[in-house]
């Protein structure tokens, strides 16, 4: 491997290459084995892949960010990164038994396990969105464009709308009602209105009442520190590879939690990668954008930042207000307005309907590949 190749690679990747290039110079000033060079190439290639993929994701239009299709791209990117990571690890199995790498691989394993739990919670969240999809179907069916709206259908749609609205807005104590209900043996304790409201809103989560997405995310990101330069050298770059992949894992999980409803969503997780790593740049900027989005006043009450959820809320609210203000028999112009809003809602519905199943399949596939990954180690 002629030295000139390395320098070319360095310059093409742009800024922030400082750590790697500095180290490489050091390495070349000493006499490194051929093996070490190969591994460093692998590491570089891997990091470049990460950077490229996330650069793509970061280049999305603002209204594409955190949509179902964007999430699917994210999952694809994650799966690819994971595959490469796995290949590198398997190739370097012989080095895995040395202390610093052994530790970081074990840590990565732990993080992956925690991430599996997050995936399960995300599946629940997707299921919840499916329930809303059903309510949307009711609304769309009841307020069908073809015929004029009867009072019965109107009331039906209204009820579904109310349920939907309650579901979309984040309820700080969603599970206490259910908790009480699960505990009490007699159903008569709970007032009837609460019951009917609760029914459409949430399935019982498949996680225990004390499980928390935000805690889980913090655990995934716990102790995730960049390896020191000398440690990285002694492990031929493997520590850095693990650190990179761990960050990819953390971010992917974090983005999913940000988008999809799950128990105790909290987005305060710390990211320890800093801009000095070139691959971290797009990830960190995405993180910033999403975090800002979550802090917006009109987003704070949503149970998930998924674009489609935001769209849904945007349609549902005025529709709700409209139906509130309307009395039967409907005036013609009100009816037209109503139908218009319903049509908007219809397009959101289509997006959800088309995208949700594939998304769930991807989450499942990724879950499977993570499990497979773990077993392979």
């Amino acid at each position, binding site marked *: 491997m002629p030295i000139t190749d390395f320098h070319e690679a360095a310059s093409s990747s742009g800024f922030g290459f400082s750590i790697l290039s500095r180290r490489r110079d050091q390495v070349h000033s000493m006499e490194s084995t051929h093996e070490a060079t190969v591994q460093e190439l692998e590491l570089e290639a891997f990091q470049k892949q990460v950077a490229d993929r996330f650069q793509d994701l970061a280049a999305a239009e603002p209204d594409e960010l955190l949509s179902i299709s964007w999430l699917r791209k994210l999952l694809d990117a994650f799966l690819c990164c994971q595959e490469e990571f796995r290949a590198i690890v398997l190739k370097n199995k012989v080095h895995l038994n040395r202390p610093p790498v052994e530790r970081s691989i074990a840590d990565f394993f732990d993080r992956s*396990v*925690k991430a*599996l*739990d997050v995936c*399960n919670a995300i*599946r629940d969240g997707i*299921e919840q969105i499916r*329930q809303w999809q*059903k309510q949307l*179907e*009711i609304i769309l*069916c009841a307020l069908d464009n073809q015929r004029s709206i009867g009072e*019965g259908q109107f*009331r*039906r749609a209204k*009820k579904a709308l109310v349920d939907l609205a309650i579901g979309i807005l984040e309820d700080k104590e969603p599970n206490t009602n259910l908790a009480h*209900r*699960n505990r009490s*043996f*007699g*159903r008569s304790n709970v007032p*009837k209105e609460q*019951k*009917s409201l609760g*029914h*459409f809103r949430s*399935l*019982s*989560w*498949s*996680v*225990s*009442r004390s*499980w928390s997405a935000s805690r*889980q995310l913090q*655990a995934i990101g716990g102790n995730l520190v960049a390896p020191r330069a000398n440690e990285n050298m002694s492990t031929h770059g493997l520590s850095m590879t693990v650190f990179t992949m761990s960050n990819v894992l953390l971010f992917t999980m974090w983005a999913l939690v940000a988008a999809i409803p799950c128990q105790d969503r909290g987005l305060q997780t710390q990211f320890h990668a800093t801009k000095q790593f070139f691959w971290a740049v797009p990830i960190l900027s995405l993180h910033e954008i999403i975090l800002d989005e979550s802090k917006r006043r009109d987003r704070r009450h949503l149970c998930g930042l998924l674009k489609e959820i935001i769209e849904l809320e945007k349609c549902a609210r005025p529709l709700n207000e409209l139906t509130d203000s309307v009395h039967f028999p409907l005036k013609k112009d009100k009816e037209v307005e109503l139908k218009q809003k319903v049509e908007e809602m219809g397009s959101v519905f289509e997006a959800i309907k088309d995208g949700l199943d594939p998304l769930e399949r991807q989450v*499942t596939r990724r879950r*499977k590949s993570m*499990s497979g990954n*773990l*077993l392979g180690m």
Partner: protein
Amino acid sequence: MFRLEDEFRTLVERGAESFDLTLSESTHPHPDYSDYDDDDDDVSADEDENFIPVAQQITDYDIVIDALPAGTIGDLHAIAKRMVAAGYVKECSHAYSACRREFLDESFSRLGLQKLSIDDVHRMQWTQLEDEIEKWMKAINVALRILFPSERRLCDRIFLGFSPADLSFMEVCRGSTIQLLNFADAVAIGSRAPERLFKVLDVYETLRDLMPEFELNFSDQYCSSLRNEALTIWKRLGEAIRGIFMELENLIRRDPVKAAVPGGGLHPITRYVMNYLRAACRSRRTLEQVFEESIDYRKGDDQVLSSSSSLAVQMAWIMELLESNLEAKSKIYRDSALCSVFMMNNGKYIVQKVKDNELGTLLGEDWIRKHTAKLRQYHVNYQRSSWSKVLGVLKVDNNSTSPSGASKSLREKLKLFNSYFEDICRTQSSWVIFDDQLRDELRSSVSGSLSPAYRNFVATLQTVPDFGKNADRYIRYSVDGVEARISELFQGTSGGKR
């Protein structure tokens, strides 16, 4: 229509209440574990069949049907019919599934099943996890054999022929099924510590035995993902079991060589591995199934095995690893005779444990024969390294030199003999041979070669004129004395000085 919906919901819920109580009584497991062997780490593979004896099964189904009284079911059906006709299919279906889902939720929590995340399972203490596995095994059997079929029946009766039947059923069962499968998954991804084998086998077998029920209950299109998930997790459990054996291999390989057993006796690792494998082979059928699934062409194909099954290959490989480790350990002993004794001890134990056992059947007669031959080889080595020089000393050259020369050399020889013999006896009486038969064998083979030689030597001494009268002064041991000392060898007590 809303009133109808409410009435529908109430009917479903009210019926469900009474079910709870009868369910907890009727399905409480009977602690009838009469199939347990007396060995500690045995697992009764028949536990599932014990739990649901035939008579009880029929009764339970009767109870299930009556739980929502026929009248209620009839009403529900009537209501559903009207709601569906009016186009309120979704509301009806949703009301139904929400109620029944809660009912299932409660049923499972009454069976002691917690909602554990994968992380929870990983951080649990092993003993606690064992308990959870027990609970899980009962719960999943109850679910697939009683609860889900009953839900299916209920669904079918209420939504007789309507479209929501399949979908509603899936919605009712999905959450609980996923919860049950997640637990199995967590076990599959968990630690590969060898002591977990038997419990993981339990989970594997439970899932395997329930596969037909999965097919039966979840035969429709909506539930296909559940079926697939069950299958995937079952396979993953198989991988976990193979992983456990790999971990066992690693443990053996990494067992520190420096830890020598004093006196060349049985090493703990030999004991551990052999007992482990014996216990594991009791689940031979299941293990064969597990290992057939992997195409794992490993070393050891030069060995002649009775069955060339993957399991047999795996077992043979583990034995090879154990032997290599033991050989490495034997080299720590500076005395090569002690090496041989060590290898004899451990080898004998291994062969003993292999015979008359499923493990022996797997490894085959040839393997046993080969290893028994190895034992004999070690025996020969021992004999040679310890005693050949002694025997050499005792060799009497009859066509000797002058009588005086002969006398002198004989005296030298006697001295040598005395010191060698003394040394060996001192050293080797603290050596250990754990097996009575082997110990006797060794002793008798030593005395068998030594006694005649010594007797001969002594006789020769006494014929030497110069020497013969004072022979007694120099001869420290009588022939009987020699034999007596030999019979004290390998006692394992420290010091053996007379």
